[in-house]
């Protein structure tokens, strides 16, 4: 995302194309290839070694675990693809994916609209807007455990602030995280609150990359504010929107921390999302093989969804 890091002084300029030939020209002065490779390796090592140790190796190992029955304590027993077969015929797996999709369906529109509203408001010449920007971004850098505990307390059915305030105006507040019908909305609310600052920052950068001349030209043409928003802002914001949607969807499929802290998958399994299920299978039920298989199912789903999005972006994403 070059838009998100573009300094504001360059907002009038169209994004410059990447200098394509730099690579070739430096190669000519680089001396022998082996030494260059060594230098490249040296620079890559700080990120490559942890990535290999803590991401690639565990990923490949989990595929191995997925082919076994393993309770973490007794020796592993090879079962082939039986874990996958078992998961695909288990209603709990489908329920977990259903809950995850339900979460995404509520979370994505909410966090996008709130983030867009904040970005539009804070893109104007508002007094103290930097303070507001920092304030909206603060939850993003706060630990999920802290935020989830805070929301759990705010939404506490018996003595939470939200139900207390609702009570003052004569509304009998719902049993937020104790009522299966309200538990997922509670999680969605907390998630949207925490993440809207992130969406706001991305969209804000996108808004500032839109050339001012376009608005001037649109004004000369006699457009209304809504028409300028609809036909100038939204199309030119679409690369940022695309980025937000891709990242939020992936995060949505991986939702866990807030669920684990706020509801633990309950009540009555109403918030048992896929990653919570993976956690429960491994650490609660000692079924690491099933859990690893489920991780790979989730990976496959996220991969397919992301490919579809990248392919589909041509239809609606406008690059200026």
């Amino acid at each position, binding site marked *: 995302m070059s838009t998100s890091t573009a300094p504001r002084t360059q907002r009038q300029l169209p994004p410059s194309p990447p200098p394509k030939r730099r690579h070739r020209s430096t190669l000519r002065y680089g001396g022998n290839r082996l030494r260059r490779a060594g230098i490249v390796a040296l620079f890559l090592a700080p990120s490559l070694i942890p990535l290999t140790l803590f991401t690639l190796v565990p990923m490949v190992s989990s595929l191995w675990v997925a082919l076994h029955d393993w309770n973490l304590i007794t020796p592993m027993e090879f079962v082939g693809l039986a874990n996958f077969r078992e998961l695909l015929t288990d209603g709990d797996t489908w329920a977990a994916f259903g809950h995850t999709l339900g979460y995404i369906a509520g979370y994505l529109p909410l966090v996008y609209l709130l983030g867009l509203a904040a970005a539009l408001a804070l893109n104007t010449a508002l007094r103290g807007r930097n303070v507001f920007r920092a304030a909206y971004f603060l939850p993003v850098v706060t630990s999920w455990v802290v935020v989830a505990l805070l929301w759990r307390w705010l939404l506490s059915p018996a003595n939470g602030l939200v139900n207390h305030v609702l009570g003052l105006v004569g509304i009998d507040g719902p049993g937020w995280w*104790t009522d299966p019908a309200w538990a997922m909305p509670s999680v969605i609310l907390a998630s949207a609150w925490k993440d809207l600052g992130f969406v706001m920052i991305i969209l804000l950068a996108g808004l500032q990359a839109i050339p001012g001349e376009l608005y001037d030209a649109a004004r000369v043409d006699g457009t209304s504010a809504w028409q300028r928003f609809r036909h100038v802002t939204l199309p030119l914001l679409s690369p940022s929107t695309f980025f937000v949607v891709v990242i939020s969807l992936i995060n949505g499929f991986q939702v866990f921390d807030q669920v684990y802290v706020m509801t633990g998958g309950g009540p*009555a399994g109403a918030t048992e999302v896929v990653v919570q299920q993976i956690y429960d299978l491994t650490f*609660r039920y000692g079924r690491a093989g099933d859990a690893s298989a489920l991780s790979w199912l989730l990976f496959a789903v996220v991969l397919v969804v992301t490919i579809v999005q990248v392919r589909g972006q041509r239809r609606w994403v406008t690059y200026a």
Partner: protein
Amino acid sequence: MAHPIRLGTVAAAATLLALSACSQGSATREDSGEDGQVVVRYMEFSSNGGNEQHLEEIAASFERENPGIDVQIETTPYADYFTKLQTAVAGGTEADAFELNYENFVTYAESGALAELDVDGGAYTPSLLEAFQHDGAQLGLPESFSDVVLFYNKDLFAAAGVPEPTADWTWEDERAAAEALTDTAAGVWGDYQPATFHEFYKALAQAGGQFLTEDGSATAFNSPEGIAAATWLAGKSGTVMPTEAEGAGTPDFDSTLFREGKLAMWHSGIWMFGPLADVPFEWDVVVEPGDVNQASAMFTNGVVVSANSEHPEEAQAWLEFLTSSDTTVDTRLNAGWELPPIADQDKLAPYLEQTPPANRQAVFDALEETVLPPVIVRQQEMQDAVTEELGNAAAGRKTVEQAVADAAARVDELL
């Protein structure tokens, strides 16, 4: 000048970080303690929630008698303990010695994670010692046993003019008293017994039912007795006991309610005697009321030595002291903690002489009719399924009959 100093600070901070990261729960570390002592790490859950200093006292006493050994205790709350232990064992970072409850002992014994112990065993109650044998090998020592009784607030009973519970009480007596004692306007509740797996298998036995068939191949609780037990438990929520939405089920909710004098009757374990010694009201205990049968829940914990321990002899010496020394017996009895598993019943006599509660005899009376939890391979899944379905009944999301039938179907799938 500023640069070398800053660099030095950064380097020192980085080293500290690296060192502290390494020292976090590593079984391979060779920490020799002070003056070349052998360090024995011990992971446990049962001192959590009020008995931590009593365990520290026992360890300090052991270290005085064995100056060459340094016992390092790592306490984790019960709710997280088995997750942590399982992960530690899988990663080879478990302590030299650790605590297990009876339900989990078999899994660990079969895994080969436990070292065989070489003990005389004469000090222990034989049945408890046998509980921690596996395929003829003594893989653990009994550490403690406990049961569940009915705690009651004498002041609340007196204020409401309700006669206090006796050992002859049945469910019906408890229900009537709970209704008379509940005063929602004052925030006082009559009873507390959650609709969970652990209460259900016990209530089922009290109702005369069975959890599994004789051969253990199927559930047997989708029966009139099972429905009676579930009705008894689920019916309390919202009538004589706070609902989940009012906070029930969250950690320490029930103990806080009782401590604040807002709970008249409470089904809880005898390990609460010590933590409740200082409350500003009178309280006592009785054997839990039964229905057609008397049945009390009994729990036993054991301690084991890891097969990976580099100091198995020192670890075993600590466990023998922890489970059967006179210091332990005295500390456990004085603290009102879970009881020591010793064979010599005379040593338990001082326990009965202490108050509160006055009726400590109930602890031993309860042992005459006990019920043990059903144990299956997929234990936690069974417990979660039963607790979830009973919760559905308690919250009114399902009828009791439907919840019991669904719970039975779900457990049958796990067998």
